[in-house]
């Protein structure tokens, strides 16, 4: 007769229950990828805006007009003096080039783009007229990958997913089993409690692997988000994060008897982290007064560590502090969860 291993059977059942639930698959894997694509497209890096320049329709300015129109960094509008003034007033042009005793630049000095526009228009006109540089200059452009918004975003989304997956994947599932009296039915067998918890956490860890890979691959394929750190380090950081939130999920679910209760608890725990933990923008933007609270949130530490490892290629050792904080969260909540856990 075949030998049956309880941990293995529990683990298999948990896996089957997950992958046979299309909703769970979508929210765990599909939704984060869609979110990444959406945000990545919305905040993609755009080329610098063109300078909007109005030119008076005057024969004396024909040469200047040709110069500006042939330069792609300018968007020229041609019209009467009155029209040019109207464009400036409405902000449709940053600067107007008019003819009066020579060439006149007209702009609103309180608008920052006007100053830039004046410099660039003047530069183009003077250069066309034959001005040369007194000092030879070489330009070096430093738009490095890793400094774009999408590069900031991907590790944050990864952290957010690990949080959501841990809390929902453990918390929700556990409460659902309690409501179904499945926990009670299991505890009525000789099943060892340890086996149950190990398989629950173990299956959650396995679900994390495609979660992490999908996001990193999507980021790389669509947006060329570079992964500077080693995959092993990323896996270890993500693993510790997933464990930590799984512990938290189990803690929240240790007594709840209603879906409403566990949903409320999880949203209450997740909401501050969505806002403060640096998913979509840096948590450093919040006032100093809030920083001790913000830094104490597990997701802040997970996001910090993920960014350090993914974007900066930092070593694991350098991340000992965030990793220790995460591990402490996981450990404490796991111990409390086991102490409080109700099977019936």
């Amino acid at each position: 007769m075949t030998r049956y291993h309880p941990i293995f059977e529990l683990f298999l059942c948990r896996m089957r229950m997950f992958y046979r639930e299309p909703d769970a698959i979508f929210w765990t894997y599909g939704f984060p990828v869609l979110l990444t694509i959406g945000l990545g497209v919305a905040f993609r890096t755009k080329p610098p805006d063109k300078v909007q320049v109005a030119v008076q329709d005057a024969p004396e300015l024909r040469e200047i007009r040709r110069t500006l129109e042939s330069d792609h960094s300018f968007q020229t509008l041609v019209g009467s003096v009155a029209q040019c003034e109207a464009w400036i007033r409405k902000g449709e042009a940053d600067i107007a080039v008019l003819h009066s005793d020579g060439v006149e630049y007209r702009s609103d000095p309180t608008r920052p783009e006007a100053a830039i526009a004046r410099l660039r228009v003047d530069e183009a006109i003077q250069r066309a007229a034959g001005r040369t540089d007194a000092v030879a200059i070489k330009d070096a452009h430093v738009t490095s990958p890793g400094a774009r918004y999408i590069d900031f975003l991907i590790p944050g989304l990864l952290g957010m997913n690990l949080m959501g997956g841990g809390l929902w994947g453990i918390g929700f599932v556990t409460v659902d089993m309690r409501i179904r009296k499945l926990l009670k039915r299991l505890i009525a067998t000789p099943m060892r409690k340890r086996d149950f918890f190990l398989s629950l956490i173990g299956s959650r860890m396995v679900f994390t692997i495609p979660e992490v890979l999908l996001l990193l691959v999507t980021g790389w394929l669509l947006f060329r988000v570079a992964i500077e750190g080693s995959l092993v380090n990323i896996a270890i950081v993500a693993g510790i994060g997933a464990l930590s939130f799984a512990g938290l999920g189990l803690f929240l679910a240790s007594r709840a008897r209603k879906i409403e209760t566990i949903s409320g608890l999880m949203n209450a725990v997740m909401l501050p982290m969505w806002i403060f933990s640096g998913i979509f923008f840096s948590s450093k933007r919040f006032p100093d007064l809030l920083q001790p609270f913000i830094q104490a949130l597990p997701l802040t530490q997970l996001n910090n560590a993920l960014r350090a490892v993914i974007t900066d290629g930092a070593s694991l050792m350098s991340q000992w502090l965030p990793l220790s904080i995460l591990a402490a969260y996981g450990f404490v909540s796991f111990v409390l969860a086991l102490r409080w856990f109700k099977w019936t």
Partner: protein
Amino acid sequence: MNDPTPAVICRDLRKRYVTRGQPPVDALVGLDLTAQVGECLGLLGPNGAGKTTTIEVLEGLLEPTSGDVEVLGMRWGVDDEPLRQRIGISLQETRLADKLTVTETLKLFRSFYRNGCDPAEVLEVVSLDEKRHARLDTLSGGQKQRLAVASALVGEPELLFLDEPTTGLDPQSRRDVWDIIRRHKERGRTTLLTTHYMDEAERLCDRVVVIDRGKAIAVGSPSELIHRIGGELVIQFSLKNHKAVAAAEAKLFSDLPSVRDCHCDAGGFTLTVGAPHECIPALVERLSVNHLELTRLTTRHVSLEDVFVNLTGRRLTAEELADKAP
């Protein structure tokens, strides 16, 4: 039946539920029972009588407030693991995981037991072998219940606990579950089940413990209990203007020949009689003398329902009694 060590003994079992802000509820107030090895013992009583509380205490899922419980010669809190290895449990309304198949579910339960049978064998016993690859959310109520019983049988338990195994099932499904329980009994194993169905207790159980308001009010085999109230036939009838007659003349029939018991309720009169051939002609005569007109008359054999009514003065139907236990 004469095994020196009973499968289950409990003495003076008490359970008080305390909810903050509410008066405490005494679900069990000194219940005693004994189940012999190899017998099928039924806990019979209305909803809220304390059946589920009793069985869950015996299953080690609920801590009694006080009292003494011994299961297979062992005690909860001391020998939990070996005890769990030797008993099988089917709870009242467990919803197993919908997305798993029948075989997967049984393999899971099988994995918890050191010894047990092949899931495929159990599936044959509960006639679910054709459904072995079906997911649970595609099963009918009866099939789910048979699977629940199968999950209790897969560890080859010496003692099987079933809490209301046939509640809500259609007649055919109920008979299927009864067959499974009979087969378990034929192997010399013990079954303890709760039910509020009289016919179930009469057909299935070797002995019945009638539970009402947290204690056992009668114990015996169904036929013993029925004989104890002395009659062999029940005559039920109702009269035109029943309400007026009932209030004034309930005792009108208690002195008819061989009447052991006379009850009257909104549905009509119920007489428990020893000699129907003497009683019925006398009844008809009594009615005509008093100018009373029959609207209905039926006779049937005495059932456990009558035992319950006889003991408590109330019917056993679930609807009439509010749920007392949580």
